[in-house]
Structures are given as C-alpha cells and as structure tokens.
C-alpha cells in the first residue's frame, strides 16, 4: 500500500501511554529474543566443558568478569519473567481471566514473581 499521501492517521504508539499489560506483552517478546540469543552462550559453555579441563577453567575465569556476570543475571531474570508470563498465556489459552481488573493485577503478580524467582535462584545456586 502506498503511503505517499499526507492522509491523517490514527494516533499510535507514540501518542498513548503504554498500560502495564502492553509493557509486559512487549517485554515477553523482547525476553524471548534475548533468551534465544543466550542459547548461543549455552552452546559455548557446553562446548568448553566438552573440550576438557583447560577450556573449562578458562570458561570459569571468563564467568567471573562483572559484565559476564551481569549478562548471566539478566539471562536468569529474562528466563523467570518469560516463564511467568508464559504461564499467564497458558491461562489465557485455557480461556480464563480476560477481564480488565484481573489483567493488571496478574501483570503485577508476574513482575513480582519474576523478581522473587530470580533472587531465589541466584541466592540458592
């Protein structure tokens, strides 16, 4: 479709303030992409272990860098968030909880649950 005519268009993303549910929704997609990229790092870690003790020790040294640690924690949080909102999607798929009040409340619960899960994982393991 040609969009050369200066027609008026409907107000869009840049006009409205994103509600929490919309923010959660795009974060789900974003974390999905980041986790997919993180799979490459998983392959690297597993390969380092497969190649022997020397490369495993190098890997452990790399994992001590603050930037790598930050990426690791980010990965864990992304995983927790994606899992929490994923469960939310399963509820929707089963046909439950589409009303407006529940939507916002569940979004808040998801965010809190994702943070708690991340903390538990990072402290426990």
């Amino acid at each position, binding site marked *: 479709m040609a969009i050369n005519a200066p027609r008026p268009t409907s107000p869009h993303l840049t006009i409205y303030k994103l509600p929490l549910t919309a923010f959660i929704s795009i974060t789900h997609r974003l974390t999905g992409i980041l*986790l997919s990229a993180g799979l490459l790092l998983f*392959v690297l870690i597993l*390969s380092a272990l497969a190649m022997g003790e020397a490369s495993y020790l190098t*890997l452990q040294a790399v994992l001590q860098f603050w930037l790598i640690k930050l990426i690791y924690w980010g990965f864990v949080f992304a995983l927790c968030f994606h899992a929490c909102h*994923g469960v939310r999607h399963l509820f929707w798929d089963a046909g439950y909880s589409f009303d407006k009040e529940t939507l916002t409340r569940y979004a808040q619960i998801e965010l809190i649950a994702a943070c708690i899960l991340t903390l538990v994982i990072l402290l426990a393991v």
Partner: protein
Amino acid sequence: MDFKTPIAKAQGLGSAKTGTMHWWLQRVTAVALLPLSYWLLAFLSLCVSASYQQTLTWLQMPWHSACLAAWVLAAFYHAALGVQVVIEDYVPGEARKILSVWLANLVFGLLALTALLALLRIVVKG
C-alpha cells in the same frame, strides 16, 4: 473432469497451512520447558562454581544428561518457533520473510546439533 478434492485444492493456499500445529507445539514445548529449566539452571550454576570433575560427574549421570538433552530439544525448538513469529510480524516482503525464517531454523537446528554432540562427548568421557 476435475478429480481433485476440495481439500487438495485448498492446501498450500491462503491460511490452509500449518498454523495450528505451530501454535500447539509452541505450547507443548513451553510446558515441557517449565520443569526442564531446572537442569539448565543447575548446570549453569555448577559451571560457575564447581570443579571440572564435579560438573563432569554430575552431567554424566544418566538422569541429568537425559534431562539436559531434553531441555536442548525443547528450548531450541521453542526458540525457533518464537523467532519465526517475530520475523513474520516485522520483516516486510514475502520472499525476505520466508528466507529469514529458513535462516533462523537453520541456525537453531545447527546450534541444537552442536549442543547435543557436545553433550555426547561429555557423556562418553572417562
């Protein structure tokens, strides 16, 4: 005379594709990944702090290697399905869209194979 059945005429056209299977497998892998992610996190935490021998011994236990292999299959498939949806939403042009999805599937397939072969090498280590 046209002997083709209505379903044969419709297949491959319009929306008579495999969307339902895509949607369903996304859910099946999602549910599988909920418990299987435990093995990913356990493995990663060992890699951060445990000795080479400890990590090796843990991963060589049949139950652990089987579950991590299952995680690899479910996770890479789930990722490929998810990235496909993102590509279909944002990449303009049918040809570019199809090529991008093929490329993504190829990359995730190769990565999954690499991971499984690495796992195999670890399991058969002395």
